[in-house]
Structures are given as C-alpha cells and as structure tokens.
C-alpha cells in the first residue's frame, strides 16, 4: 500500500482544524495540522474506529413538555448511530427527570448509556 495522505476535519471543537494524516500501509504514522492534542487522537480514532456522539429525543409521560432531549454518555461507533437513533424512537420515560439521569442502559449492547440532557419537571 505504501504511503497515503488523507485530509480530515477534526470535529472535537468549533475550530475544525484541517488535519493532514499520513498512513503507511493503512496505519496512521503522522498527524499534522492540529492545534491541540485532542486533534491527534481524533485522527487516530477516525482512521481506525470512527466514533460519534448521539443526541436525540425520547417521549416523556407527564412532563412539562412532550419530549425529553437525550445524549449519549460517550461516543458510539459511527456505523451504529442510525440503529441507536431508531432504537430510541419507541422509548418512553416518566417525569420528573434530572439532567444526567440514565434513560437507556447499555444501548444496543454497545456499553454506552443514554442520559437526559436536562431536568424535566412534572407537568403542572
């Protein structure tokens, strides 16, 4: 395979640094263009096992609003994101809920929980 150069945009923060990634025989050998160390780890991760955060909504019974916004505790494999989003669509929780409460444990067996993004009180 030899040496290959790939361009990536880091998504860790709004800077979106343009990374130049050198791959030798398919393995990352050099990363430049990052402003911080997180950029370098992003490049390695993205080339081997791309990960993404998942944010979505689920239904909440008796809450001040009909939907509760939720967020994955950590990143999930990029190629499982659509499946995880689909899995959330049938879920319902009951108010009250606090920010950080676990609403789904170990989603699709991937070892990551889904958490409430905010408090939601009972509907008055």
């Amino acid at each position, binding site marked *: 395979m030899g040496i290959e150069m790939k361009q990536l945009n880091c998504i860790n923060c*709004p800077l979106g640094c343009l990374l130049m990634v050198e791959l030798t025989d398919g393995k990352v050998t050099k990363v430049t263009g990052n402003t911080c160390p997180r950029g370098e780890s992003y490049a390695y991760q993205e080339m081997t096992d791309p990960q993404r955060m*998942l944010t*979505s*909504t689920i239904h909440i019974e008796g809450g001040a609003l009909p*939907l509760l916004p939720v967020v994955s505790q950590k990143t999930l494999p990029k190629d499982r994101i*659509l499946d995880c989003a689909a899995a959330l669509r049938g879920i319902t929780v009951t108010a009250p809920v606090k920010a950080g409460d676990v609403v789904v444990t170990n989603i699709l067996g991937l070892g990551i929980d889904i958490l409430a993004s905010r*408090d939601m009180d009972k509907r008055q």
Partner: protein
Amino acid sequence: MDEQWYDIIIVGGGPAGLSAAYSAWMQGAKKILVLERDREVGGILQQCIHNGFGLHHFKEELTGPGYAQRCYDLVKDKKEIEILVDTMVLNINNDKIVTAVSPKYGLIKIQGKTVILTMGCRERTRGAIRIPGYRPAGVFTAGAAQRMVNMEGYLPGKKIVILGSGDIGLIMARRMSLEGCKVQAVLEICPFSNGLTRNMVQCVYDYDIPLYLSHTITAIHGKDRVTGITAAKVDEHMKPISGTEFEIDCDTLLLSVGLIPENELSRELGLTMHPLTNGPIVDQHRETSIEGVFAAGNVVHVHDLVDFVSEEAEIAGKYAALKAMGKMEGNVTDVRVEAIDEVRTCVPQHIRIGKGETIRLFMRVRKPMKRVRLTVKSGVNMLFSKVLPIAKPSEMIAADIPAAKVNGHYTDWTVSVKEEEA
C-alpha cells in the same frame, strides 16, 4: 405587578438573558426581572438538542438544553432574580417603562432603572429571498421545523431538501436523517459552506448527503403539498444560470437562509441601529444609544457560539447593574470603532474609554480567507496584531485589546483583516 421598580429588566430569557441576570446579581443588583415569552426559559437552546455548546464557557461540551439548564441553575434560586414566563413584552419607552402581557398577570407596566435587550433573532423567510413557484404546505424555516421535531414530536416531512448550508440547515440534515427521513440534498448559494466545519463533517459527509455549492432553488412545485423543487447553478452574481436546472424529488423544503436580529422593540424605542448587523449600536459595555438601555447576544449581532453570547451578556449584565446602582464610572472620551478591509462587522461600534478595561472585540469577515492578519489601530498606533490561519464569515472572531494598550489612545479605532502575503 404594576409599576413596580426593578434595578434591571431583562427582555428575553434565553442564554443571553439568563447570563446577564446572573452577572448583574454577581455585581450586587438587588431587583432583577427576566421576561420570557415562551413557557420556559432557555430560548432557542431548548430546541438545539445537539451538543457542541459550552466548551469555552462551562469548560464542558453540553447539549443546547444542557447549556440552558446550567444558565438557569445559576439564577433559579436567587431571591433577587424574578423570572416571568409566558409573558410578551409589547413596548419599551424612553423612560424605561416596559409594557408586557401574560395570561396570569394581564397587562402590566414595570419600571426598570436599566433595561437589557436580549430578544435573540428570527429566521429569514422564503418571501424575503423570493423563491418562485407555488406556496404549498411543506416549506418551513429550519428552526420552525426543528421546534416541531425536537419539542413537539412531529416530522415536517419524509423526503427533505435543505436550502442553505448554515449551521441550522446542517444540523437539521443530520436530525432528519436520525429520524429516518431521506435528506435528498443541501443547496448553498455561496461557493463555500456557511456552517462550522465540524457540522459539515458530522451532518452532511457522515450521512452521504449531496451538497451542491453555488446552487439555488428556482421553483417550488406542488399546489397543496410540496412535490419537488427545481435547482440550478448560479453565477458569480448569485443569479441562476439558464440551462443548468435539474429537478429534485421531495415533499419538504427546509430554509436555512440567514438570521435577523429581532429588533422591533429596539426600533420602536428609537435606538440607533447598525445597517450591517441589523442590531443596535453599542459600546463596550453593551450600552445602546439610549442611556440605561443595554443589549447583548443575537439581538446585537448574530453569533455562532453561544459561549460568546454568554460572555457578551455578562458584560451587559455587569454594567447595567453598575449603572442601576449609580456606580458607573465616567469616561474620558468616546472613540468610534470602524470595520475596514475584509472585516464586515465589528461589535462594539464605539468605546467609552475610562480606566483600565480590556476591550473584547467581536467581528466577522466578508469572505473566507487563509492566513490573515488581524490588526486593531487607534489612528496610526498599533493596539493589536495577530496572524490567524483561517477566517470565515460564518465564524465570529474575538480579539482582546489589553487595557494598557487601550488607555491613552484617543483616536478612532480601525479594525482590519487582510490576507497576509506569503
């Protein structure tokens, strides 16, 4: 509720309003009132369920509702801060009497020693950009659709075309994909994308959504409900090129074609407005042309990072509190801040030079550039100079001018960004 006095009345309970309230409280203001038209505080963040907020301000990556929760947590138990929701401000007059209406209290008139305007912004509409074709159901601004999807639980449609590659459009491209819809295309009239690069990656490239730069929509089809759109390439004047038209099948069109600061109250009050930001002209304390009336956040100029909104609002909150308590210091002189070269807008637009303040400037450039030099001068005196690797119109730039540099220079400032020769 009528004719009560408050130190500070804050119009709008989004991140700007809540951050201003907290900052005013920290400064020692004793009677702070926040008026919010929606049923909850949090503003637009309530519907921005994605993450990417708070890295600067809270040193943590949060979702929109999470950021709003943090801002609210700081103010919710403070007896000096009163929050009224489901309350719409109808008018503010020169005497800083605020007229508002709510189902609970009816029509109320309240007097503020100072007022902070934090009404945010609204979305540019189809009518404003004159898209030809029919007017069927299925054409939404991206933000209105986002509210229905994320807060009420309904989809605007199943087969989506998005006009505009600003962040709202990109975020909705991902959101609709996650909800099982097919996003057929994102069309952008400029030759470059207008959103954050990270959103291009995780909202468009991740989902293999076709992105057409230098394209626009030349017709919307369907009488009762959208059945499709006609897209076309545009020339350097952003006019459609005849013969390049093609059809895209869809039942929904989401428009992400710009944000406009929500300044009806400001205009009725007679504040001096800036024609390019579409917001009131402010000094470094975010005080407007009317003494005691401050403004911060998207209502002054459209931000892309809510962290900067909070910072700006904290400035407004602090100085509104000082003013209300009679502790505002005088200034030596007033200098204008002029945006030149490739800087399109810069806030604040003027500075009251007093003693020892670092001045933070927020600016946007006209076009995307690589390797630029940002300079701030007072007349010929260089106050600040820095090389930036990238500058984009969609990404606000912040620059801090230290107090030591500010004091003693009383000539009008110019803020410039220019491409640096290699």
